[in-house]
Protein backbone atom coordinates (compact mmCIF):
# COMPACT_ATOMS: atom_id res chain seq x y z
CA UNK A 1 0.00 0.00 0.00
CA UNK A 2 1.23 3.49 -0.76
CA UNK A 3 2.03 5.53 2.28
CA UNK A 4 -0.06 8.60 3.01
CA UNK A 5 1.92 11.85 3.13
CA UNK A 6 2.46 12.97 6.75
CA UNK A 7 0.60 16.28 6.29
CA UNK A 8 -2.55 14.40 5.47
CA UNK A 9 -2.22 12.32 8.62
CA UNK A 10 -2.44 15.58 10.55
CA UNK A 11 -4.75 17.49 8.30
CA UNK A 12 -7.54 14.92 7.91
CA UNK A 13 -8.36 14.52 11.62
CA UNK A 14 -8.18 18.29 12.13
CA UNK A 15 -10.57 18.95 9.26
CA UNK A 16 -12.85 16.22 10.55
CA UNK A 17 -12.80 17.76 14.04
CA UNK A 18 -13.61 21.21 12.68
CA UNK A 19 -16.53 19.82 10.70
CA UNK A 20 -17.80 18.14 13.83
CA UNK A 21 -17.60 21.39 15.81
CA UNK A 22 -19.45 23.19 13.02
CA UNK A 23 -22.13 20.51 13.04
CA UNK A 24 -22.39 20.88 16.82
CA UNK A 25 -23.03 24.63 16.50
CA UNK A 26 -25.53 23.91 13.75
CA UNK A 27 -27.49 21.41 15.83
CA UNK A 28 -27.55 23.80 18.78
CA UNK A 29 -28.78 26.65 16.61
CA UNK A 30 -31.47 24.81 14.67
CA UNK A 31 -32.72 22.61 17.48
CA UNK A 32 -33.25 25.46 19.88
CA UNK A 33 -31.85 23.47 22.80
CA UNK A 34 -30.77 25.36 25.91
CA UNK A 35 -27.19 25.78 27.02
CA UNK A 36 -27.75 23.55 30.05
CA UNK A 37 -28.78 20.68 27.79
CA UNK A 38 -26.35 21.13 24.92
CA UNK A 39 -23.64 23.72 25.53
CA UNK A 40 -21.65 24.84 22.51
CA UNK A 41 -17.95 24.00 22.29
CA UNK A 42 -17.22 27.64 23.06
CA UNK A 43 -19.28 27.51 26.25
CA UNK A 44 -17.54 24.31 27.27
CA UNK A 45 -14.11 25.86 26.80
CA UNK A 46 -15.26 28.91 28.75
CA UNK A 47 -16.53 26.69 31.55
CA UNK A 48 -13.25 24.76 31.53
CA UNK A 49 -11.36 28.04 31.89
CA UNK A 50 -13.58 29.26 34.67
CA UNK A 51 -13.30 25.97 36.57
CA UNK A 52 -9.63 25.48 35.67
CA UNK A 53 -8.33 25.38 39.22
CA UNK A 54 -10.80 22.71 40.35
CA UNK A 55 -10.42 20.71 37.13
CA UNK A 56 -6.64 20.73 37.32
CA UNK A 57 -6.52 19.74 40.99
CA UNK A 58 -9.09 17.00 40.41
CA UNK A 59 -7.25 15.74 37.32
CA UNK A 60 -4.08 15.57 39.41
CA UNK A 61 -5.82 13.41 42.02
CA UNK A 62 -7.33 11.17 39.36
CA UNK A 63 -3.93 10.82 37.69
CA UNK A 64 -2.42 9.64 40.99
CA UNK A 65 -5.14 7.01 41.44
CA UNK A 66 -4.98 5.87 37.84
CA UNK A 67 -1.21 5.71 37.83
CA UNK A 68 -1.14 3.80 41.11
CA UNK A 69 -3.62 1.23 39.86
CA UNK A 70 -1.90 0.98 36.49
CA UNK A 71 1.55 0.42 37.98
CA UNK A 72 0.16 -2.14 40.39
CA UNK A 73 -1.50 -3.96 37.51
CA UNK A 74 1.66 -3.71 35.39
CA UNK A 75 3.91 -5.24 38.07
CA UNK A 76 1.46 -7.79 39.50
CA UNK A 77 0.38 -8.66 35.97
CA UNK A 78 3.96 -9.27 34.93
CA UNK A 79 4.62 -11.44 37.97
CA UNK A 80 1.40 -13.42 37.67
CA UNK A 81 2.03 -14.06 33.98
CA UNK A 82 5.56 -15.28 34.78
CA UNK A 83 4.07 -17.82 37.16
CA UNK A 84 1.37 -18.85 34.71
CA UNK A 85 3.83 -19.07 31.84
CA UNK A 86 6.33 -21.15 33.78
CA UNK A 87 3.99 -23.69 35.35
CA UNK A 88 1.33 -25.71 33.62
CA UNK A 89 -0.13 -26.65 37.01
CA UNK A 90 -0.44 -23.03 38.05
CA UNK A 91 -2.01 -22.18 34.72
CA UNK A 92 -4.60 -24.92 35.01
CA UNK A 93 -5.40 -24.00 38.62
CA UNK A 94 -5.61 -20.23 38.34
CA UNK A 95 -6.78 -19.40 34.83
CA UNK A 96 -10.48 -20.17 35.40
CA UNK A 97 -10.46 -18.01 38.52
CA UNK A 98 -8.83 -15.15 36.69
CA UNK A 99 -11.63 -15.39 34.15
CA UNK A 100 -14.20 -15.37 36.94
CA UNK A 101 -12.58 -12.25 38.38
CA UNK A 102 -12.60 -10.63 34.95
CA UNK A 103 -16.24 -11.55 34.32
CA UNK A 104 -17.47 -10.10 37.60
CA UNK A 105 -18.59 -6.53 36.90
CA UNK A 106 -16.46 -4.09 38.86
CA UNK A 107 -19.58 -2.15 39.78
CA UNK A 108 -20.70 -5.11 41.88
CA UNK A 109 -17.40 -5.29 43.69
CA UNK A 110 -17.08 -1.58 44.35
CA UNK A 111 -19.03 -1.43 47.62
CA UNK A 112 -17.03 -4.39 48.93
CA UNK A 113 -13.75 -2.79 47.92
CA UNK A 114 -14.72 0.47 49.60
CA UNK A 115 -15.71 -1.48 52.67
CA UNK A 116 -12.32 -3.18 52.85
CA UNK A 117 -9.90 -0.65 51.40
CA UNK A 118 -11.66 2.46 52.61
CA UNK A 119 -13.09 5.29 50.56
CA UNK A 120 -9.82 7.07 49.78
CA UNK A 121 -6.93 6.45 47.44
CA UNK A 122 -6.46 2.76 48.36
CA UNK A 123 -9.99 1.94 47.22
CA UNK A 124 -9.59 3.84 43.97
CA UNK A 125 -6.25 2.24 43.25
CA UNK A 126 -7.77 -1.18 43.88
CA UNK A 127 -10.64 -0.54 41.48
CA UNK A 128 -8.26 0.73 38.81
CA UNK A 129 -6.00 -2.27 39.33
CA UNK A 130 -8.95 -4.64 39.02
CA UNK A 131 -9.99 -3.13 35.71
CA UNK A 132 -6.57 -3.08 34.06
CA UNK A 133 -5.04 -6.28 35.47
CA UNK A 134 -6.57 -8.91 33.22
CA UNK A 135 -5.53 -7.66 29.77
CA UNK A 136 -1.94 -7.46 30.99
CA UNK A 137 -1.91 -10.97 32.43
CA UNK A 138 -3.70 -12.47 29.45
CA UNK A 139 -1.41 -10.86 26.87
CA UNK A 140 1.83 -11.52 28.70
CA UNK A 141 0.95 -15.17 29.38
CA UNK A 142 0.08 -15.63 25.73
CA UNK A 143 3.44 -14.10 24.82
CA UNK A 144 5.39 -16.34 27.18
CA UNK A 145 3.78 -19.38 25.60
CA UNK A 146 4.32 -18.30 21.99
CA UNK A 147 8.09 -18.60 21.94
CA UNK A 148 9.54 -19.91 18.68
CA UNK A 149 10.24 -23.66 19.08
CA UNK A 150 13.54 -23.35 17.22
CA UNK A 151 14.69 -20.76 19.74
CA UNK A 152 13.74 -23.12 22.54
CA UNK A 153 15.73 -25.91 20.85
CA UNK A 154 18.68 -23.54 20.61
CA UNK A 155 18.54 -22.93 24.35
CA UNK A 156 18.13 -26.63 25.11
CA UNK A 157 21.14 -27.41 22.95
CA UNK A 158 23.19 -24.95 24.95
CA UNK A 159 22.07 -26.67 28.16
CA UNK A 160 20.43 -23.46 29.31
CA UNK A 161 18.73 -23.57 32.72
CA UNK A 162 15.00 -22.99 32.96
CA UNK A 163 15.69 -19.63 34.52
CA UNK A 164 17.93 -18.62 31.62
CA UNK A 165 15.30 -19.79 29.18
CA UNK A 166 12.76 -17.63 30.98
CA UNK A 167 14.79 -14.43 31.29
CA UNK A 168 16.85 -14.52 28.14
CA UNK A 169 14.28 -16.02 25.80
CA UNK A 170 10.67 -16.16 26.90
CA UNK A 171 10.43 -12.77 28.61
CA UNK A 172 12.06 -10.74 25.81
CA UNK A 173 10.02 -12.65 23.23
CA UNK A 174 6.89 -11.77 25.22
CA UNK A 175 7.64 -8.03 25.41
CA UNK A 176 5.51 -7.08 22.38
CA UNK A 177 2.60 -8.95 23.98
CA UNK A 178 3.18 -7.38 27.39
CA UNK A 179 3.27 -3.92 25.87
CA UNK A 180 0.08 -4.62 23.95
CA UNK A 181 -1.48 -5.51 27.31
CA UNK A 182 -0.16 -2.26 28.82
CA UNK A 183 -1.66 -0.30 25.94
CA UNK A 184 -5.11 -1.70 26.66
CA UNK A 185 -4.60 -1.14 30.39
CA UNK A 186 -3.58 2.49 29.74
CA UNK A 187 -6.96 3.20 28.17
CA UNK A 188 -8.74 1.47 31.05
CA UNK A 189 -6.84 2.88 34.03
CA UNK A 190 -8.16 6.49 33.92
CA UNK A 191 -11.66 5.15 33.33
CA UNK A 192 -11.25 2.87 36.33
CA UNK A 193 -10.02 5.69 38.53
CA UNK A 194 -12.81 8.06 37.51
CA UNK A 195 -15.40 5.36 37.99
CA UNK A 196 -13.97 4.62 41.43
CA UNK A 197 -14.08 8.29 42.41
CA UNK A 198 -17.62 8.60 41.17
CA UNK A 199 -18.65 5.67 43.35
CA UNK A 200 -16.58 6.62 46.39
CA UNK A 201 -17.13 10.36 46.45
CA UNK A 202 -14.87 12.69 48.36
CA UNK A 203 -15.58 11.31 51.79
CA UNK A 204 -11.83 10.96 52.22
CA UNK A 205 -11.31 14.69 51.83
CA UNK A 206 -9.31 16.25 48.99
CA UNK A 207 -10.90 17.05 45.65
CA UNK A 208 -12.35 13.59 45.09
CA UNK A 209 -10.88 13.62 41.59
CA UNK A 210 -12.66 14.03 38.27
CA UNK A 211 -15.12 11.30 39.21
CA UNK A 212 -16.42 13.26 42.16
CA UNK A 213 -16.43 16.44 40.09
CA UNK A 214 -18.77 14.71 37.63
CA UNK A 215 -21.02 13.83 40.51
CA UNK A 216 -21.06 17.30 42.00
CA UNK A 217 -21.43 19.24 38.70
CA UNK A 218 -24.27 16.92 37.84
CA UNK A 219 -26.16 17.57 41.06
CA UNK A 220 -25.54 21.30 40.64
CA UNK A 221 -26.75 21.05 37.02
CA UNK A 222 -23.56 22.80 35.82
CA UNK A 223 -23.80 21.12 32.45
CA UNK A 224 -21.07 23.01 30.54
CA UNK A 225 -18.71 22.23 33.44
CA UNK A 226 -19.74 18.60 33.16
CA UNK A 227 -18.72 18.62 29.52
CA UNK A 228 -15.49 20.35 30.50
CA UNK A 229 -14.84 17.51 32.94
CA UNK A 230 -15.37 15.00 30.16
CA UNK A 231 -12.87 16.95 28.06
CA UNK A 232 -10.34 16.90 30.89
CA UNK A 233 -10.80 13.14 31.42
CA UNK A 234 -10.24 12.64 27.75
CA UNK A 235 -6.99 14.60 27.89
CA UNK A 236 -5.83 12.60 30.90
CA UNK A 237 -6.56 9.35 29.09
CA UNK A 238 -4.67 10.62 26.10
CA UNK A 239 -1.61 11.34 28.24
CA UNK A 240 -1.71 7.78 29.60
CA UNK A 241 -1.99 6.21 26.18
CA UNK A 242 0.74 8.45 24.79
CA UNK A 243 3.08 7.51 27.64
CA UNK A 244 2.64 3.81 26.99
CA UNK A 245 2.96 4.32 23.25
CA UNK A 246 6.27 5.99 23.96
CA UNK A 247 7.36 3.08 26.18
CA UNK A 248 6.35 0.67 23.45
CA UNK A 249 8.44 2.57 20.96
CA UNK A 250 11.43 2.79 23.30
CA UNK A 251 11.46 -0.96 23.95
CA UNK A 252 10.64 -2.28 20.49
CA UNK A 253 11.63 0.14 17.76
CA UNK A 254 15.13 -1.20 17.33
CA UNK A 255 14.22 -4.77 16.64
CA UNK A 256 10.52 -5.39 16.27
CA UNK A 257 8.88 -5.61 12.87
CA UNK A 258 6.04 -3.33 13.90
CA UNK A 259 8.55 -0.48 13.64
CA UNK A 260 10.06 -1.49 10.32
CA UNK A 261 10.79 1.56 8.24
CA UNK A 262 10.67 1.73 4.47
CA UNK A 263 14.41 1.58 4.02
CA UNK A 264 17.29 0.74 6.27
Amino acid at each position, binding site marked *: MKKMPTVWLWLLPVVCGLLFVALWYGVRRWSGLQSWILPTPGEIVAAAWQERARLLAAAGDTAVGALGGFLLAATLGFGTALGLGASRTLRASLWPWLLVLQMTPVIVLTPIIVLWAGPGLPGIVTITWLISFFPIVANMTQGLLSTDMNHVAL*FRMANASRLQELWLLRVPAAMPFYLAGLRIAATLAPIGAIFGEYMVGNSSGGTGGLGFLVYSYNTQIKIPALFATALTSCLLGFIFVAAVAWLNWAVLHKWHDSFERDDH
Partner: protein
Amino acid sequence: MEPVAPIVKFSSLKKRYGAGPWILEDINLAVAADDFVSLIGPSGCGKSTVLKLISGLSPGTEGGLEVLGTTPKQARDRQAFIFQDATLLPWLTAQRNAELPLRLRRAAAAERAAKARAMLDLVGLAGARDYYPRQLSGGMKMRVSIARALTLSPQLLLLDEPFGALDEMTRNRLNEELLALRERSRFTALFVTHSVSEAVFLSNRVVVMAANPGREHGEVRVDFPYPRPAALRGSPEFLAKVNEVTQLLHQVEATS
Protein backbone atom coordinates in the same frame (compact mmCIF):
# COMPACT_ATOMS: atom_id res chain seq x y z
CA MET B 1 47.38 -47.83 13.35
CA GLU B 2 45.00 -47.92 16.31
CA PRO B 3 41.32 -47.43 15.51
CA VAL B 4 39.98 -43.98 16.24
CA ALA B 5 36.79 -43.83 18.32
CA PRO B 6 33.93 -42.69 16.09
CA ILE B 7 32.42 -39.30 16.75
CA VAL B 8 28.91 -40.61 16.13
CA LYS B 9 27.99 -44.29 16.27
CA PHE B 10 24.46 -45.52 15.63
CA SER B 11 23.84 -49.21 16.32
CA SER B 12 20.60 -50.62 14.91
CA LEU B 13 18.77 -47.51 15.97
CA LYS B 14 15.00 -47.29 15.50
CA LYS B 15 12.88 -44.21 16.13
CA ARG B 16 9.22 -43.39 16.34
CA TYR B 17 7.53 -40.35 17.81
CA GLY B 18 5.22 -41.56 20.58
CA ALA B 19 3.04 -44.33 19.24
CA GLY B 20 3.34 -43.09 15.66
CA PRO B 21 4.78 -44.99 12.71
CA TRP B 22 8.45 -45.96 12.59
CA ILE B 23 10.34 -42.98 11.28
CA LEU B 24 13.82 -44.52 11.27
CA GLU B 25 14.61 -48.19 10.97
CA ASP B 26 17.94 -49.81 11.60
CA ILE B 27 20.29 -46.88 11.32
CA ASN B 28 23.95 -47.88 11.60
CA LEU B 29 25.67 -44.71 10.57
CA ALA B 30 29.15 -44.12 11.93
CA VAL B 31 30.92 -40.79 11.60
CA ALA B 32 34.68 -40.44 12.09
CA ALA B 33 36.53 -37.40 13.37
CA ASP B 34 37.67 -36.07 10.00
CA ASP B 35 34.37 -36.80 8.25
CA PHE B 36 32.15 -34.27 6.57
CA VAL B 37 29.02 -36.36 6.05
CA SER B 38 26.07 -35.10 4.04
CA LEU B 39 22.63 -36.65 4.47
CA ILE B 40 20.38 -36.42 1.47
CA GLY B 41 17.03 -38.04 0.75
CA PRO B 42 13.37 -37.41 0.03
CA SER B 43 11.43 -35.01 2.22
CA GLY B 44 10.16 -36.65 5.39
CA CYS B 45 12.68 -39.51 5.36
CA GLY B 46 13.99 -38.55 8.78
CA LYS B 47 17.11 -36.48 8.13
CA SER B 48 16.24 -33.83 10.69
CA THR B 49 15.29 -36.59 13.10
CA VAL B 50 18.80 -38.06 12.80
CA LEU B 51 20.26 -34.69 13.83
CA LYS B 52 17.76 -34.30 16.66
CA LEU B 53 18.79 -37.73 17.98
CA ILE B 54 22.48 -36.84 17.91
CA SER B 55 21.90 -33.54 19.66
CA GLY B 56 19.72 -35.18 22.29
CA LEU B 57 16.71 -33.00 21.43
CA SER B 58 14.73 -36.20 20.90
CA PRO B 59 15.44 -39.68 22.30
CA GLY B 60 15.93 -42.88 20.28
CA THR B 61 13.31 -45.60 20.69
CA GLU B 62 15.36 -48.76 20.26
CA GLY B 63 19.02 -49.53 19.63
CA GLY B 64 22.05 -47.50 20.59
CA LEU B 65 23.60 -44.15 19.82
CA GLU B 66 26.92 -42.93 21.09
CA VAL B 67 28.10 -39.38 20.51
CA LEU B 68 31.67 -38.29 21.27
CA GLY B 69 32.10 -41.38 23.40
CA THR B 70 29.05 -40.74 25.58
CA THR B 71 25.29 -40.12 25.46
CA PRO B 72 23.90 -37.45 23.14
CA LYS B 73 22.86 -35.23 26.03
CA GLN B 74 26.20 -35.43 27.76
CA ALA B 75 27.95 -34.66 24.52
CA ARG B 76 25.92 -31.49 24.07
CA ASP B 77 28.55 -29.06 25.22
CA ARG B 78 30.90 -30.32 22.52
CA GLN B 79 28.45 -30.07 19.65
CA ALA B 80 26.59 -27.22 18.00
CA PHE B 81 23.44 -27.12 15.88
CA ILE B 82 22.80 -24.81 12.95
CA PHE B 83 19.15 -24.60 11.97
CA GLN B 84 17.58 -23.92 8.60
CA ASP B 85 16.42 -20.47 9.52
CA ALA B 86 19.19 -18.69 11.34
CA THR B 87 17.20 -18.65 14.64
CA LEU B 88 18.77 -15.40 15.75
CA LEU B 89 17.07 -13.64 18.63
CA PRO B 90 15.54 -10.55 16.99
CA TRP B 91 16.07 -8.34 20.05
CA LEU B 92 19.83 -8.88 20.12
CA THR B 93 22.46 -7.40 17.82
CA ALA B 94 24.65 -9.68 15.71
CA GLN B 95 27.36 -9.39 18.33
CA ARG B 96 25.00 -10.24 21.20
CA ASN B 97 23.56 -13.13 19.24
CA ALA B 98 27.00 -14.56 18.65
CA GLU B 99 27.74 -14.21 22.35
CA LEU B 100 24.63 -16.12 23.40
CA PRO B 101 26.03 -19.67 23.85
CA LEU B 102 28.90 -18.32 25.94
CA ARG B 103 26.50 -16.20 27.93
CA LEU B 104 24.36 -19.24 28.66
CA ARG B 105 27.52 -20.88 29.96
CA ARG B 106 28.15 -17.90 32.17
CA ALA B 107 31.44 -17.01 30.52
CA ALA B 108 32.93 -13.69 31.63
CA ALA B 109 31.62 -10.71 29.67
CA ALA B 110 35.02 -9.75 28.30
CA GLU B 111 35.81 -13.26 27.16
CA ARG B 112 32.52 -13.80 25.38
CA ALA B 113 32.66 -10.41 23.71
CA ALA B 114 36.16 -11.09 22.42
CA LYS B 115 35.35 -14.59 21.16
CA ALA B 116 32.13 -13.52 19.45
CA ARG B 117 33.91 -10.59 17.85
CA ALA B 118 36.68 -12.84 16.54
CA MET B 119 34.17 -15.27 15.04
CA LEU B 120 32.15 -12.47 13.42
CA ASP B 121 35.37 -11.12 11.91
CA LEU B 122 36.09 -14.57 10.58
CA VAL B 123 32.74 -14.85 8.80
CA GLY B 124 33.19 -11.39 7.33
CA LEU B 125 30.74 -9.48 9.49
CA ALA B 126 33.14 -7.13 11.28
CA GLY B 127 31.12 -4.16 10.02
CA ALA B 128 27.70 -5.54 10.98
CA ARG B 129 28.27 -6.34 14.64
CA ASP B 130 25.76 -3.78 15.89
CA TYR B 131 23.04 -4.63 13.39
CA TYR B 132 19.83 -6.25 14.52
CA PRO B 133 18.75 -9.39 12.63
CA ARG B 134 16.11 -7.54 10.63
CA GLN B 135 18.84 -5.32 9.22
CA LEU B 136 20.76 -8.34 7.91
CA SER B 137 20.28 -10.22 4.63
CA GLY B 138 19.53 -13.95 4.67
CA GLY B 139 23.16 -14.80 3.96
CA MET B 140 24.42 -12.47 6.70
CA LYS B 141 22.01 -14.00 9.20
CA MET B 142 23.32 -17.44 8.36
CA ARG B 143 26.87 -16.19 8.86
CA VAL B 144 25.97 -14.90 12.31
CA SER B 145 24.41 -18.28 13.04
CA ILE B 146 27.63 -20.05 11.98
CA ALA B 147 29.73 -17.66 14.04
CA ARG B 148 27.49 -18.29 17.03
CA ALA B 149 27.88 -22.06 16.65
CA LEU B 150 31.67 -21.83 16.39
CA THR B 151 32.25 -19.62 19.45
CA LEU B 152 32.22 -22.78 21.55
CA SER B 153 34.78 -24.53 19.31
CA PRO B 154 32.53 -27.59 18.94
CA GLN B 155 33.98 -30.93 17.95
CA LEU B 156 30.81 -31.84 16.09
CA LEU B 157 28.74 -29.47 14.00
CA LEU B 158 25.20 -30.45 12.99
CA LEU B 159 23.70 -28.45 10.13
CA ASP B 160 20.07 -28.89 9.05
CA GLU B 161 19.64 -27.41 5.56
CA PRO B 162 21.41 -24.25 6.65
CA PHE B 163 21.61 -22.74 3.18
CA GLY B 164 18.32 -24.06 1.83
CA ALA B 165 16.65 -20.65 1.77
CA LEU B 166 19.52 -18.84 0.04
CA ASP B 167 20.11 -18.10 -3.64
CA GLU B 168 22.66 -20.25 -5.41
CA MET B 169 25.45 -17.67 -5.52
CA THR B 170 25.24 -16.99 -1.79
CA ARG B 171 24.94 -20.67 -1.09
CA ASN B 172 28.11 -21.48 -3.08
CA ARG B 173 30.00 -18.73 -1.34
CA LEU B 174 28.92 -19.92 2.09
CA ASN B 175 29.88 -23.50 1.15
CA GLU B 176 33.39 -22.29 0.42
CA GLU B 177 33.50 -20.27 3.62
CA LEU B 178 32.30 -23.23 5.64
CA LEU B 179 35.12 -25.40 4.30
CA ALA B 180 37.64 -22.65 5.00
CA LEU B 181 36.37 -22.40 8.59
CA ARG B 182 36.72 -26.14 8.91
CA GLU B 183 40.36 -25.90 7.83
CA ARG B 184 40.92 -23.67 10.84
CA SER B 185 38.73 -25.27 13.48
CA ARG B 186 38.75 -28.96 12.44
CA PHE B 187 35.23 -29.87 13.43
CA THR B 188 33.40 -33.01 12.32
CA ALA B 189 30.33 -32.09 10.30
CA LEU B 190 26.97 -33.72 9.65
CA PHE B 191 25.12 -31.78 7.02
CA VAL B 192 21.53 -32.22 5.84
CA THR B 193 20.73 -30.85 2.40
CA HIS B 194 18.48 -31.23 -0.63
CA SER B 195 21.15 -30.07 -3.03
CA VAL B 196 23.26 -32.81 -4.57
CA SER B 197 26.02 -30.51 -5.77
CA GLU B 198 26.26 -28.86 -2.37
CA ALA B 199 26.59 -32.30 -0.75
CA VAL B 200 29.30 -33.38 -3.17
CA PHE B 201 31.22 -30.14 -2.88
CA LEU B 202 31.29 -30.16 0.91
CA SER B 203 31.59 -33.76 2.00
CA ASN B 204 33.86 -36.73 1.81
CA ARG B 205 30.80 -38.97 2.31
CA VAL B 206 27.31 -38.49 0.94
CA VAL B 207 24.75 -40.75 2.60
CA VAL B 208 21.55 -41.23 0.65
CA MET B 209 18.48 -42.09 2.70
CA ALA B 210 15.24 -43.78 1.71
CA ALA B 211 11.85 -43.02 3.25
CA ASN B 212 8.98 -44.86 4.97
CA PRO B 213 10.60 -45.89 7.16
CA GLY B 214 13.79 -43.86 6.95
CA ARG B 215 16.93 -45.91 6.38
CA GLU B 216 20.36 -45.68 4.81
CA HIS B 217 20.10 -46.55 1.16
CA GLY B 218 23.62 -46.06 -0.05
CA GLU B 219 26.75 -43.99 0.27
CA VAL B 220 29.00 -42.19 -2.17
CA ARG B 221 32.58 -41.42 -1.16
CA VAL B 222 33.95 -38.16 -2.46
CA ASP B 223 37.72 -38.22 -2.24
CA PHE B 224 38.68 -34.80 -3.56
CA PRO B 225 41.32 -33.39 -1.22
CA TYR B 226 40.57 -30.43 1.03
CA PRO B 227 40.83 -27.50 0.71
CA ARG B 228 38.59 -27.63 -2.33
CA PRO B 229 38.71 -24.77 -4.83
CA ALA B 230 35.48 -23.28 -6.15
CA ALA B 231 36.58 -24.35 -9.63
CA LEU B 232 36.14 -27.97 -8.58
CA ARG B 233 32.44 -27.60 -9.36
CA GLY B 234 33.21 -27.37 -13.08
CA SER B 235 35.39 -30.46 -13.31
CA PRO B 236 34.20 -33.69 -14.99
CA GLU B 237 35.10 -35.73 -11.89
CA PHE B 238 32.83 -33.53 -9.80
CA LEU B 239 29.98 -33.89 -12.24
CA ALA B 240 30.47 -37.65 -12.27
CA LYS B 241 30.02 -37.72 -8.49
CA VAL B 242 26.95 -35.54 -8.76
CA ASN B 243 25.52 -38.03 -11.24
CA GLU B 244 26.30 -40.96 -9.01
CA VAL B 245 24.43 -39.40 -6.08
CA THR B 246 21.55 -38.33 -8.32
CA GLN B 247 21.11 -41.89 -9.54
CA LEU B 248 20.96 -43.22 -6.00
CA LEU B 249 18.31 -40.60 -5.30
CA HIS B 250 16.32 -41.72 -8.33
CA GLN B 251 16.41 -45.31 -7.08
CA VAL B 252 15.18 -44.16 -3.70
CA GLU B 253 12.38 -42.10 -5.14
CA ALA B 254 11.30 -44.97 -7.40
CA THR B 255 11.05 -47.43 -4.49
CA SER B 256 9.25 -45.24 -1.96
